[in-house]
């Protein structure tokens, strides 16, 4: 066991320590706290690189790629509950990604948040978040993972609600926490179920872990009441947690609202890391998801994976559709994220860990790039987020524009040169070959089309045409005396952009069909380079198809938004002009929030009111009734007493009193009369005694 494995805990511990120290820092110690956070994160990044190279070395030397460290935590009954961490390729790649992106976002934040009052606290939360996220990654115990998972939820709550004085931010934070908690509770139940089935929550524990063969076999064999294998139930419940965290339908509602947080937060949480935690979770428990009852059906997907696929596919399209009609720059990106997360889920479902994870990694880079670019835009436009009020920024903010464009193309999956293309292609290819149904493939393709479309729309709105910022500010002239001009962001912000942009391009190289390094890395094999990979069944057609789709999307976007420059912010959207009804539905996010508002939340509050009513009137009412009954009875008793008992009692008392008075005459109060009686009694007594002695 190497040094890095034994001390893997340092990776999350360093940011946690930094968080603790910054929490104690004074409000004005900005430089100190930023340095602390960035330094800790940098160290973590270096350690992650160490870990990564360790795994690389192990793979190249043909050693087992997974190493775990377990330790006892507390005892209950006859056993100890153990926790532990592990280092395997999945962990290593995630560690590098999170620490790297995180580090860049930290650096970016020094610029973005430079004018905020609560600068130090922001870095405290960021560090804490990073620590929790890294904890999720290295955990070798579902319990530890869950705990860090919850902490991630807490920090995201704190970060989303960072500008707590805005009611919308506070509400969004709460919404995020509660929505994810719904999923988490299912996760908890799944975990408990897993615990009771496997007797342990350690993933890998020298054959005794819950993701290892013996436990899986037992769980698969164990059938529940409704004929479902226990493993399936557990997997679905755990997946529910992932749904919450990764914003999958139907628990996606919190994610767009979460854009109330500062933009680096959005980048960090809602692009690169936290939302990816759900995908990571599914990847982590993939053995459980894919556990088959017998070897015969090994080829067909398990129920759990089918659910994952379907949810992912639906989410991908659903969110992409909504994104088409949004006007907030970050909201568009948020829905895009949801959509991409759907992709990842679908990838996991149809193609396995490598497919999903590859998209996760590439997406992390280009989506954080996009978010930070958007942040740069917002920053440059003085906190303006509505794309309709932007425009023409390509000249004013060249670096931002360039990097943003890279990100946009990567997201769209522009062929060959951009990482997004390769990862998305892998998913589509896998979906194509899915044994259950072709529909996910079609949905995925539709999603890709929509993605290209709405990204083109956004870029046209933001960067092309003329600036509409001034016209907006004319409406509220009191705010500023002179209309502000957009400006390029500081280098602390642009530097990460550039770095990320280059990554977004280069990263695709590690996952091409010809050199599926990523795939083999994850499975712990040495990669093989072969162009023949392209020639495998179905690869080229899929690549062609997706290329066509992307171009179609871009073209549509140009057709609607790029042909003639957008002149005024108040003009209706091109698509709205075409199909106002559909557009409104999309703009209102398919009325999901309203639906929840009118169903779940209303039922909930009705239940609450009912419960309170129960308390006040029923339970308490019973008590009151009883007490009133007692009061009534006592009143009755009193009446009887007064009118029935007392009268006769008085009579009796009078009799007693009269006779008492007679007796009282003897009690004259005069000592001498008593003494007289004593004398008489004495004489009589002596006489009686003598007489009785005689006789």
């Amino acid at each position, binding site marked *: 066991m190497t040094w890095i494995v034994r001390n893997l805990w340092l990776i999350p511990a360093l940011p946690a320590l930094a968080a603790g120290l910054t929490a104690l820092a004074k409000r004005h110690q900005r430089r100190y706290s930023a340095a602390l956070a960035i330094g800790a994160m940098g160290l973590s990044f270096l350690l992650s690189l160490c870990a990564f190279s360790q795994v690389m070395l192990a793979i190249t030397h043909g050693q087992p790629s997974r190493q775990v460290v377990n330790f006892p*935590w*507390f*005892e*209950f*009954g*006859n*056993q100890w509950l153990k926790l532990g961490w592990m280092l395997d390729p999945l962990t290593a790649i995630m560690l590098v990604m999170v620490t790297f992106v995180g580090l860049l976002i930290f650096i970016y934040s020094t610029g973005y948040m430079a004018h905020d009052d609560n600068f130090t606290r922001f870095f405290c939360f960021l560090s804490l978040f990073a620590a929790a996220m890294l904890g999720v990654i290295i955990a070798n115990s579902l*319990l530890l993972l*869950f*705990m*860090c998972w*919850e*902490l991630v939820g*807490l920090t995201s*709550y704190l970060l989303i*609600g960072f500008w*707590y*004085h*805005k*009611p919308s*931010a*506070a*509400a969004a*934070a*709460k919404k995020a*926490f*509660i929505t994810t*908690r*719904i999923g988490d*509770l299912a996760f*908890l*139940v799944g975990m*408990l*179920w897993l*615990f*009771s089935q496997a*007797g342990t929550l350690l993933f890998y524990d020298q054959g005794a872990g819950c993701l290892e063969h013996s436990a899986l076999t037992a769980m698969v064999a164990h059938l529940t009441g409704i004929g479902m294998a226990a493993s399936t139930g557990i997997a679905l419940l755990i997946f529910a947690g992932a749904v919450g965290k990764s914003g999958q339908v139907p628990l996606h509602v919190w994610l767009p609202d979460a854009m109330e947080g500062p933009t680096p937060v959005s980048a960090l949480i809602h692009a690169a890391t936290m939302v990816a935690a759900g995908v990571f979770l599914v990847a982590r428990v993939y053995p459980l998801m894919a556990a088959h009852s017998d070897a015969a059906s090994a080829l067909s997907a398990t129920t759990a994976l089918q659910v994952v696929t379907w949810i992912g596919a639906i989410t991908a399209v659903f969110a992409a559709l909504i994104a088409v009609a949004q006007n907030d720059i970050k909201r568009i990106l948020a829905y895009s994220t949801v959509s991409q997360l759907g992709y990842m889920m679908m990838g996991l479902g149809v193609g396995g860990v490598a497919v999903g994870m590859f998209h996760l990694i590439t997406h992390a880079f280009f989506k954080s790039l996009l978010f930070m670019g958007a942040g740069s835009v917002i920053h440059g436009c003085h906190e303006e987020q509505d794309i309709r009020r932007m425009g023409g920024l390509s000249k004013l903010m060249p670096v931002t524009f360039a990097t943003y464009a890279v990100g946009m193309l990567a997201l769209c999956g522009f062929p060959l040169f951009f990482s997004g293309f390769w990862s998305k292609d892998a998913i589509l290819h896998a979906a194509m070959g899915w044994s259950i149904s072709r529909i996910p493939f079609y949905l995925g393709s539709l999603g890709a089309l929509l993605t290209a479309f709405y990204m083109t729309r956004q870029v046209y709105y933001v960067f092309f045409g003329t600036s509409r910022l001034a016209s907006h500010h004319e409406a509220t002239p009191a705010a500023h005396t002179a209309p502000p001009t957009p400006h390029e962001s500081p280098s602390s912000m642009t530097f990460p952009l550039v770095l990320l942009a280059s990554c977004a391009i280069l990263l695709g190289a590690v996952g091409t069909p010809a050199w599926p390094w990523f795939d083999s890395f994850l499975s712990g094999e040495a990669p093989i380079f072969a162009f023949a990979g392209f020639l495998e069944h179905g690869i080229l057609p899929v690549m062609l198809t997706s290329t066509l789709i992307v171009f179609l999307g871009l073209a549509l976007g140009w057709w609607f938004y790029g042909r003639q420059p957008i002149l005024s912010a108040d003009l209706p959207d091109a698509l709205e002009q075409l199909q106002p009804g559909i557009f409104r539905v999309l703009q209102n996010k398919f009325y999901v929030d309203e639906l929840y508002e009118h169903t779940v939340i209303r039922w*909930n*509050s009705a*239940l*609450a*009111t*009912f*419960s*309170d009513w*129960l*308390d006040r009137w*029923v*339970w*308490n009412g*019973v*008590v009151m009734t009883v*007490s009133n009954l007692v009061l009534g009875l006592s009143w009755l008793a009193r009446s009887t007493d007064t009118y029935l008992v007392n009268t006769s009692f008085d009579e009796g008392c009078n009799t007693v009193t009269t006779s008492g008075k007679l007796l009282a005459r003897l009690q004259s109060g005069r000592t001498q009369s008593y003494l007289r009686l004593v004398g008489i009694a004495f004489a009589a007594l002596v006489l009686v005694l003598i007489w009785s002695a005689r006789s």
Partner: protein
Amino acid sequence: MNLTPSISSLTVVPLVGALAVLALGSNRKLARGIALAFAFLALIFTLLLWHRFNPASGTLQLEEIHAWIPVLGVQYHVGADGLSLLMLLLSTLVVPMSMAASWNIQEKPSLYFALILLLEAGLIGTFTALNFFHWFLFWELSLIPAFFLIRLWGGSQRATAATQFFLYTMVGSVTLLLSFLALFLYTGIFDFITLGELARSGHLLQSLATAPHGTAATADRFALLICLGALLGFAVKVPIVPFHTWLPATYAEAPTGTTMLLTGTMSKMGLYGLIRILLPIFYLQMRSMRTPLLWLAVATIVLSAYAALVQKDLKRIFAYSSINHLGYCLLGIFSILKFTGDDPAMLSEKAAALSGVFLQMFNHGLTAATLFWFVALLEKRSGGLRGLNDFGGLRKVATVFAGLMGMALFSSLGLPGLNGFIGEFLIFKGVFPLAGWAASLSTLGLLLTAIFLLGLIQRVFAGPLNPSFAHMPDLTTAERLSLFPPLALMVALGIYPQLVLGVINSTVLHLVQQLR
């Protein structure tokens, strides 16, 4: 000569303190100083006992037995196992906190602090007594100072609240007393340990069969009746829905320092009684009622959480939250009634559930008391206001206050890393295999807790600053320092629960094996 104090001396400390405060406490500063000194002395005694306690043994330790009224089988019998010790620690910990929260009380401070110390004595006695006679004495002894604390220092509705509290608990006490008198009538024993052994050997039912017109069949029914009577006593104290209506009113009207004691320690008396008394003696009867009891526990959890959602008074919210948290304990206790034979796996699950219950009892005591303390601090700053909508944006002016209270709130909603999580996790871990449906339903409570606690944060601390609190002072250094120990303990227990679990584990195993 052993220098470590005995349980009796621990019981005496607050009593002496109460007398000393009454005798010397002519002025406020002196009274509270003396009271705090005695509270700390009790805490030190408890820590010394903790030190002396042998955690490897699950049986009762530090026992003291003296004959008292031998004719009635009344002995002075005290002793402590892990559970008692944990509750002692909780009590002696919460009392100084409560005193600190009532530090600036104006009316009759010497009487107030004396009553608190008296209450502490009652608590310590209840948690250590092993003979029904003086256990009941202490049980009632704690009721009287609580009544006066509410009646004399409470809010505007205090008279009603105090009377409701008193009558409710009295009714419970009466049925409890009747039950034990009935037991005594047929067995001649007041000692809990002996009664438990009788029950395990089956002699208890035989004795009950000797009742007039008694047969083996009626003995069963009779035992059930006695069990129900005792259960009612504890149910009111805990409380279990639907015997809980006294609690929100009482908590809301009591002075906040007293509320801390009520929720932090007195509510544990009921749970303690359930575990220490009802389970060993009536486990057969309880087992027969297991499913309805579990339903009650689930109702306690869910209904109280729902009720908390619509409350507008911070103290009422926390009161319902209290019921909710104690509901998890009930869930754990009732679930381990399941008959599992000698299956070691199930035994382990039961141990997990019971460990969780103990931990949750301690955690809830600590967290709830701290939360009420924060309410007290808030009331002090707002001049008595504590409505949910009276505040807003306080985080801006009172950052540290918001941060620390947020910590306590998150501890309450069971955030991992803080103390609340482990207890709840262990309870659910144990309950799930024993009563899966109840566990699944109860998770709803976790969600609702999150909803109303976050709602509270949103209304009180977030949003635009309420102008009337624009100059609200943040926590003073003294307040920060006095709040530090409970908060530190929350973190410590969240990260290293073995602190407590190591001490109670043997006790848990012992109890669980008894219930087989």
